[in-house]
């Protein structure tokens, strides 16, 4: 049995027939080839699979593709274009601050933080840590991630180096 799903993904409308049990993460990765969204646990803890649904961060391993019917989904692929000279300020800040090593957790963190980015400049360190509490990173020890988020909240294109008390 399949069900119809009509969903906007990164600004493009997709109409597909999917098995009702298909996870959004698998739909994005394997049906649409949007492999920037990663799967690190499939039980809602690691945050690697985070995408935005109607602008809010959502764990795509905990959502069925059919539940996004009529909604708008945004993945890491939408933050900037491979052809762009300059990436999204958050991506530039991650690059400048060495906030990624293996990069497996990175798309989920970007999509989590980007959903809040309007308020980044006002966020305290504690608020940044809180915002990151649902994303695991095994490589970086998080410090440079916090610095990058700080830097992205500062004026400029995110190329600055953020500090963390």
């Amino acid at each position, binding site marked *: 049995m399949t069900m119809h799903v009509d969903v906007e993904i990164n600004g493009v409308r997709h109409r597909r027939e999917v098995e009702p049990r298909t996870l959004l993460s698998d739909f994005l990765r394997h049906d649409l080839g949007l*492999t920037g969204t*990663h799967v690190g646990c499939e039980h809602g803890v690691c945050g690697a699979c985070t995408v935005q649904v109607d602008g809010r961060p959502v764990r795509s391993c905990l959502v069925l593709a059919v539940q996004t019917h009529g909604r708008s989904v945004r993945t890491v692929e939408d933050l900037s274009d491979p052809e762009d000279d300059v*990436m999204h300020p958050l991506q530039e800040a991650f*690059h400048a601050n060495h906030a990624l*090593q293996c990069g*497996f957790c990175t798309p989920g963190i970007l999509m989590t933080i980007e959903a809040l980015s309007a308020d980044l400049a006002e966020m305290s360190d504690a608020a940044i840590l809180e915002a990151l509490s649902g994303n695991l990173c095994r490589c970086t020890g998080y410090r440079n991630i916090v610095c990058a988020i700080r830097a992205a909240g500062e004026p400029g294109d995110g190329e600055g180096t953020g500090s963390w008390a």
Partner: protein
Amino acid sequence: MPSVGRSLPRREDRPLLQGRGRFVDDIDFDGTLHARFVRSSVAHALLLGVDSEEARAVTGVVTVVDAAELALPPLLPPIDNPDALPVPRPLLATGKIRFAGEAVAVVVADSPYVAEDAAELVAIDLEALPAVTTTAQALRDDAPRVHDQPTNVMYDKRFSTGDELPRGPVVIHRTFSSSRQTALPMEPRGLLARPHGDGLEIWASTQSPHMLALAVAAGLGLAEDQVRVMVPDVGGGFGLKAHAYPEELVVAALARRLGRPVKWVEDRAENLTSSCHARGQTIDVTVSADADGVLTSIDADVVVDMGAYGVYAHGHLLEAGGTPSMIPGPYRLRDYRFRSRAVATTKVPLGAYRGVGLPVATFVHERAMDLVAAETGVDRAEVRRRNLLRADELPYTSVTGQRYDSGDYGAALDTALREIRYSAFAEEQAEALRAGRLLGLGFAVYVEYSAVGSSVFAGRGMLGLAGYDEANVVLGPDGIVRVWTTLPSAGQGITTTFAQLTADELSVDVELVEVRPVDTAVGRLRGNGTFASRSAVSGGGAIRVSCEELRRRLLEDAADVLEASPADLEIVSDAVRVRGAGTSSVRLVDLAAAAAPDRYDVVRRHDPEHPVYPYGAHACRVEVDPVSGFVRILDYVVVEDCGRIINPRIALGQTHGAVAQGIAGALYEELSYDEHGQLQTASLMDYLVPTASEVPPVQVEHMHVPTSASLVGAKGVGESGTLAPGAALANAVADALGAECNSTPLHPTVISDLARARLARTAEGVR
């Protein structure tokens, strides 16, 4: 401008940030099939049969294979060590099940969903046997035997400097222990195999592609050049992916038999119940010192819970071999005895995890130092100073034969103490205590071996580990220098740092250098792969010797063109020119265009003769919450010497990550089993990986005493940060509580009891 020593931005970042990384599970071919392993839910049992009829009937299932149908030999790590028994590991459980999570059969289907459904339908007929869940139990005479051997002790090594060790006058006897932990890379294991000609192409999330290729070829009865392993982006390894696993050989065999691509990506539950664990050890130690706190002897009994099997190709000697060899640590010690055993239990096999046996060795010698200090009344920093090897004593061959190359251990300690404000602490602590607050300060000095070469592996009898690494450096007709090595990138940034090294070795612009992903078909390279902090030392060495030869050829050919002697020529950015002669030069791209094929295609090997020895000191201040038992890290200082630093920002990132994992092991992470051999922490809800809130900012200070033991001057930076946090934090918490902390992780329930007792003592006026 030299590029080594500069924090060049990482080349790997952009695609990873834009969602264009390519990890194993991102690769798809038409007609790819998906494998799902059927795993035992029982820890120990006779395996009577596998009934896969119902599973086979599911639409979309292509085949279900058990051990009988697979009919391939077990993985037998090539270990030649008189103290070790052989531990063969069947690719799929055969006759017996030895841990919960062991693969019994595999379902192949046209979608992962169908494969998973069908795997649920495979019935395993078994007769349960009693589980063996602790080494104490496994060592009992009447314990069930995990293997077909008269004992569960699969490795038993004794070492002694003499029949009688000098004892006393101060004698301290303690038992230390470390719980099982695991590397937990955010990307679990995965492999995709595709038939190609008469062989196989494999994309694997691995740290050891060349070893994997050899293991697959040998296991499947193929010639070496029939198996090609390519390494796409790897989402972290930390040792866990340094091994060739049974599942990987099974998937490769299935692709060949079915004539179709087969993919396997484990889920997190499989990662926790079938990828290797680490650090499960109990050590009984007797430390003797004189009244001034100077060590007179150490006697250690190391018992490693190796789980059901070893790992390929390291076998089951990793921690049992490593820990006792480094228990003497950075200290002057002549009288030492140990016994070290690897004991089989019905648990997940023990393998590599960042630091391997050395965090435990450091825990032992650094807890011992604090205990000697307490016993003798000598200040704990001073006790260490009296025992630490002085800079002028190095190089120094330790009692276990480790050749500490260079360093200044005392300076590392003193810097850490200064930065943590040790001298001011006692007063602050006393004042806080009067206000009912429990502050503690702890520190630890460590020394680590890294970049082990073939002679050392051979000496340990680990014959399946190459010990050397190779590089293929090629100047192409387009003027680009391309570099392939045997060391895959799993987040360490070597696509960037190897380009920096190559650029400087050849004196070319770093923009002209391209480091390519590992592909065993290129250059017919052989080598070890990346573990034990070896990339910079061993891979860097291979790059250096390859570049020397390429440079020699370039200068020789340019000498003809420029009618000069090679000795008068130099390479500058993208050309060879006559030194000092201004205009007379020939561009590399023109040399390349005129050269015979292969002329500028160089493969060279580096086999480190001796390991190198990074070292350092960690110090921290903590506050213990007496109610929750929570340990808050107030300050954390790292002083380290990892040799010449290729890219400071990347090196610092390695240290941040390693320290975070060390802290995790000290305070949070524990793989615990019940008495039936069931892992109680088989999800990320139960296995507590720290989030951003649990990892404090870490202050890192570098020092550098040059070494001649490393060709490129680097000592390796991947692991050292994991060595000292357990010891430094345990010492700090012990200091806060006025009680001993001799096992990790430090459990909040135990800590809060001790904390309340401490406050009660204070209230009664007892100190």
